[in-house]
């Protein structure tokens, strides 16, 4: 989000970010989590001015830290997969398994507050857009990025979704709580990592089936006991499955419909009210989607992906991807993940802004301001300010 049209300002921004990130890696090295079986993981760095480097490997956390302090990447990634040869090309790495990971992002929740705190910024010239258009109204070329300054409602909505996912993982999939790690992503979402080795061996196809289960895709009326009668197109029969309606999706649907194993007539009437088999089928598909968890399917399906590493800084915000398992209820990302220096710097604001970071409220209306580095980095990463 650090746009490049004004070279002088761009370079000043990079200098500030690099310096703040280096200081962070120097002072907060203990927050960086050592991935299990580190030597079998692939690492990747996004560099401020040189793009992405992948297929890196580190034998221990010391080696990795030394490289972070020396190179100061804008983003640090680590594979969920374990490879025999992590530095080789993808086809030669020899995949041996991968952690199961879920991504819950505010953009997938479609929260009503989103429009209240979103800005459109040109990726080319970095100018905020006052009106909605296809191309930048200033440079006429740039791709337009949407940036968001999440509010308390976003955080509440995200946490609710995380808890919903964790309920599915424990009560349905039988995943042990101690193998579930919840991380704030460093921007506007949460990553849920499952280290249970039983799930490591699952291929992309099997993970895709888990996704379908969690998001509520492809539910058949037959699985709750409603079968299509052969005689007519919308005729149906109701016979509850012998394995019952007490658990899993069947329990969720039964609760929603207010039925149990004895409610054959009630369910029959409900189906009839919806116009028969097809009408009820459409209703059930919608209901399952509403009950399901909103996760990003691509992230979970990909068994070769590199993920933002826990304890490193997200260059979309300057906040840290940080573990928040035990404190999920009270976790405040704009406070608990905001760990950069509080030295002050001068910035030039592109828009007036009101936000609260690390317990301090900022109401910046004027064009220039002197604010702490953590706030300056946050606003620069969001594309809303530049170093003065």
């Amino acid at each position, binding site marked *: 989000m650090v746009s490049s049209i004004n070279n002088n300002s761009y370079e000043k921004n990079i200098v500030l970010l690099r310096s703040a990130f280096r200081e962070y890696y120097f002072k907060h090295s203990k927050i960086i989590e050592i991935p299990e079986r580190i030597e079998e993981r692939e690492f990747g760095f996004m560099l401020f001015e040189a793009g992405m480097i992948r297929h890196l490997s580190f034998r221990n956390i010391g080696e990795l830290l030394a490289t972070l302090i020396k190179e100061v990447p804008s983003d640090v990634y680590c594979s969920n997969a374990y490879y025999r040869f992590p530095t080789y090309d993808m086809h030669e790495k020899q995949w041996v398994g991968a952690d199961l990971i879920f991504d819950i992002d505010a953009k997938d929740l479609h929260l009503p507050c989103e429009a209240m705190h979103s800005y459109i910024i040109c990726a080319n010239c970095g100018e905020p857009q006052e009106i909605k258009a296809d191309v930048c109204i200033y440079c006429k070329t740039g791709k337009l990025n949407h940036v968001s300054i999440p509010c308390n409602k976003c955080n509440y909505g995200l946490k609710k979704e995380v808890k919903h996912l964790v309920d599915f993982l424990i009560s349905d999939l039988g995943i042990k709580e101690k193998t579930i790690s919840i991380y704030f992503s460093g921007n506007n979402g949460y990553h849920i990592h499952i280290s249970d080795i039983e799930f490591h061996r699952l291929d992309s196809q099997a993970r895709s*089936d888990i996704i379908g289960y969690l998001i509520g*895709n*492809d539910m058949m009326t037959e699985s709750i006991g409603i079968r299509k009668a052969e005689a007519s197109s919308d005729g149906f029969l109701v016979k509850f*499955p*012998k394995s019952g309606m007490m658990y899993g999706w069947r329990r969720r649907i039964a609760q929603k419909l207010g039925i149990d194993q004895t409610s054959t007539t009630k369910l029959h009437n409900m189906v009839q009210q919806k116009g028969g088999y097809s009408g009820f089928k459409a209703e059930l598909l919608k209901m399952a989607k509403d009950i399901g968890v909103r996760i990003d399917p691509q992230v979970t399906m990909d068994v070769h992906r590199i993920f933002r590493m826990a304890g490193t800084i997200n260059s979309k915000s300057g906040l840290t991807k940080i573990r928040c398992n035990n404190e999920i209820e009270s976790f405040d990302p704009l406070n608990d993940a905001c760990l950069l220096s509080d030295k002050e710097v001068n910035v030039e604001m592109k828009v007036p802004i009101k936000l609260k970071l690390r317990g301090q409220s900022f109401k910046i209306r004027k064009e220039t301001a002197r604010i702490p580095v953590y706030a300056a980095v946050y606003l620069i990463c969001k594309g809303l300010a530049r170093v003065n």
Partner: protein
Amino acid sequence: MVFLLQYIYKLLSTLSIKLGTGDIAKYPFLNEASDYIRETHFDFEEFNRPEMRHIINRAAERMETELISGTIYQKLDKYEVEILTFLVTLMVAKYIGIGLILKKYSLFEAMRAERFLSEDLKKERNEQRKHLLLSKIFEELFKVTVDVDSTDNRLFKVRVTDYLMRASHFHEQEWKLINRLVHMGYVYLDAEETVRLIRSELSTLIYNRVKSMTLSTFPETIKLKADELRVKLVPKYEHSIYRVTGYYPPCIRHALKVMNQGENLPHSARLMLATYMLAIGKSIDDIVILFHNAPDFNEKITRYQVEHLAGTKGSHTKYSVPSCEKLRNENLCFATEECSGIINPSQFGRNSKNYNG
């Protein structure tokens, strides 16, 4: 503590009873059947004796029923006959030496065992014997733990991961996890569904038995019967080898190669193959023939699915070829240098075509 006691009980109950000869007749691929052959010091040359003609004819009848009529061989004799019949079928399949025939035969034998096993699991009232069958077949052969549900002994439970590793490759929607009863890490299934889970592995087990068989000479009677069968079988199986040209992208070449070997392609690979063939203008008929070698081929279902992908049936939406990125994620990409610069298999060779022209 409770789990430990349950485990000890299960172990003791399994040790205290043994498989009956009836079980060995139904499941001749079990180690107990091999032990029988070893313990009786059976010599393969004994198949040349006149009293063995019945066994050899029975083996041929079984293979013809399965490979020509396409139906499961139903007859069940006493265990001595079944073990020897099964052995002869394996030797005949080895002697014929056509991979596709062996694949198909292995699948039918797996389905035959599947039918017996689901019946046994449904009818068996003795819990110990039920556990023994589950342990002998699921655990010993395939390392899958299956338990009987404690509240309803018509139901069986398997670990979610064991289920997903198998069922996620099935095509029918009913096998999707969401359409199953899932609770605390287990998927609950009835006897037929439980047994269906291991069909592919059972088929591979039988296939590998034949592949790993080392025989310096075959008994004359078996060679003669195998030659007779080969004449009947070759016309049916020979035409279905689909030509793999050098012009397809490597992902498609790989899928065709797997298909030609009669191996089971995952659903995602079938979708890739069909959408690709549609994109390059192949007819529905040609594409249906292409899937002829799939072990679970059913022309009616395949035709409907291809027509669905072509947008002529069902949702009337034409499916496009999955992107290279998606195929990479699904482990279906086998990129070579020729793939550089393309993001979809349907773009493969376009540049070289221009260059050649």
